[in-house]
């Protein structure tokens, strides 16, 4: 079995397209926390959940070796998120979090089988994925706006504090709090929509 290091290395060799590299990094940024959270919700301890996230990542990165650029198959990004979703949901349904590092063929089957579109697992997965995408997008947006602008959004919209109180606390006018929170929301929607339009929903 290839070591994780070799696996990562093969990714470098395989993915030469900038968009593909970006897709992989985005996938890691969203799916690692997502997997970890799903695993913890299932009752796994911290280190086991972390290990599971790693295993899935390694399994998917191995599958990347089988990716052949082909216009008929669509983009790498779409393929990547589709196989990852299949793997996770089939895995969640069937194996109840036993190690997947053992049987390669099992992993492949889990990657290739279409998952049951009506399962509870899928619904749970979709919900958590959307949450994770929001978190990921909000981290990106936060870096692009002024600290006070972000706070105006966060306190008023996420913490649902009254606007007047937020304005007082941040030393802003009430009107600028309205402006700030909507600007952040607009950017946030832009990032989330971009991700979803990118075909990540498989």
């Amino acid at each position: 079995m290839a070591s994780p290091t070799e696996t990562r290395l093969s990714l470098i060799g395989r993915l030469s397209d900038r968009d593909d590299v970006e897709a992989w990094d985005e996938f890691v940024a969203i799916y690692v926390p997502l997997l970890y959270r799903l695993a913890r919700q299932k009752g796994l301890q911290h280190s086991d959940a972390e290990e599971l996230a790693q295993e899935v990542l390694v399994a998917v990165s191995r599958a990347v070796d089988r990716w052949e650029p082909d216009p008929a198959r669509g983009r790498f990004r779409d393929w990547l998120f589709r196989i990852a979703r299949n793997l996770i949901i089939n895995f969640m349904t069937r194996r109840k979090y036993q190690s997947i590092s053992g049987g390669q063929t099992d992993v492949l089957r889990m990657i290739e089988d279409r998952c049951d579109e009506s399962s509870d697992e899928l619904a749970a997965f979709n919900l958590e994925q959307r949450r994770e995408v929001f978190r990921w997008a909000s981290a990106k947006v936060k870096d692009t706006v002024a600290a006070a602008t972000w706070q105006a959004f966060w306190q008023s919209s996420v913490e649902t504090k009254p606007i007047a109180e937020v304005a007082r606390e941040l030393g802003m006018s009430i009107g600028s709090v309205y402006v700030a929170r909507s600007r952040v929301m607009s950017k946030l929607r832009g990032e989330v929509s971009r991700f979803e339009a990118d075909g990540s929903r498989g």
Partner: protein
Amino acid sequence: MDKVVGKCDDVQLERLLHSDDEESDEVRAAAKHLESCEACRSRLASFAADASWWNDARESLSSSDAFAWKPDLTRSAAFAGREGSRGDSIQSDVRRILGAPNHPENLGRLGRYDIERIIGSGGMGIVLKAHDSELNRPIAIKVLAAHLAHVGAARDRFSREARAAAAVVHEHVVAIYNVETDGHTPFLVMQYVPGRSLQARVDEDGPLTVEEVLRIGMQAAAGLAAAHAQGLVHRDVKPSNILLEETVERAVLTDFGLARAINDASLTQTGVLAGTPFYMSPEQATGEAIDHRSDLFSLGSVLYFMATGHPPFRAEGALAVLHRICREPHRPVWQLNQSVPDEVSEVIDTLLEKKPGRRYASAEEVRERLASLLSRAQQFGFGRRRFARIRGKRLRRRVLWSAVAGLLVAAAVVGVVATWPASRPQATEQPPAHPAADGAEIARSEREFAGEWKESAHAIGQMERPTSFLSSGDSWNRDLESLKQSLANLEALVNPAAKPEGERK
């Protein structure tokens, strides 16, 4: 707020949303209007996103973060100097490992060592400050992380690499006193280095001076050379693995060879997951065989980091960083930090060559190069001024000669040859004598200058072909000949070694 200030304007609201402007009169007026106009507030919110988005955002972002994944792999495997976000779990890990303390102020005991406190933690394990009661000296203990301790391969690697590293005795390498792998918890006993890591130093104080870059780089290269002489490759040279001893600021390298022990045995620290590998060499990134020259690339990245405050290859994700390391050129240091002399920038360029064969041959060679730059810099009053003057001079000269050439061409075209001697006095701008130590620098800038010179001369040579706007071909040629002669004279003044174009005939 009964009276509505200003008027409702949807177009303006849209515009407001998509600008980042905070201070303009338009924004202020719109904000004022929003304070009094309920309708516009909700319209602004719906232009940003409809109600379901606001709900989803609130729901997603406020949902319990009890299971939030907190990556701790980006932290240093060495002296991170701070406790991680999972401080509580580290504390409990430590308590599990240690025996009851002898003194109430200590954390506990490990073998004959009194553990005082946790220095830091990373992917590989936990670093503890301790006291050796037998030898009565402070020490640092690195405990292999619990999830690695029961992996046989990791234990073996850990002890093998640690014993190899223990054989390196050098003032710029953290000394390893003892390797304990028999007990339940494998650990290393090391020299305790009071101070902070290079990473912390630059994070806190910003980029270093050129002199410091040279001094720390030279010491790190010396430490690497000592290890390489023993056949040991570090594999993880990075700012957090270079410790700066308090007061004397002596640089010492830590964590020799341990990167391999971690990488091979554990799923953590793979870079698939996290831990952006800013300092990896291209051959490491692509999985080729590596030798000591991989450390030289990483050292180049560390020098770059010291001089600019950030590593040479940056991107949002780990894979994108590796992609850049393998495929894209770095931005030269002097472009980012004007005070870095060309030669220091060039040393870094050489270290950052993608192909190992194009880098320096050894760490010792790098040390010598940095040492000579440092002593020269110190001799001439801390490098920057001296070097900067030379670069400035070279630039001035470049501009000057372009101007001279331009002037001469113009003179030739209008046939007013008599104007050319006016530029002669400029030649005295040449530095009449150079200190010996500067010889190489001057020679190099002369060579560059000669190159430009040839270009100008060549350009003028091209003009021999008769051009239609000249009334008299003869007078053109005559003027051109005297122009070329004057160029040759000038060149002979500044660059006696080179044969100007005009003299080749």
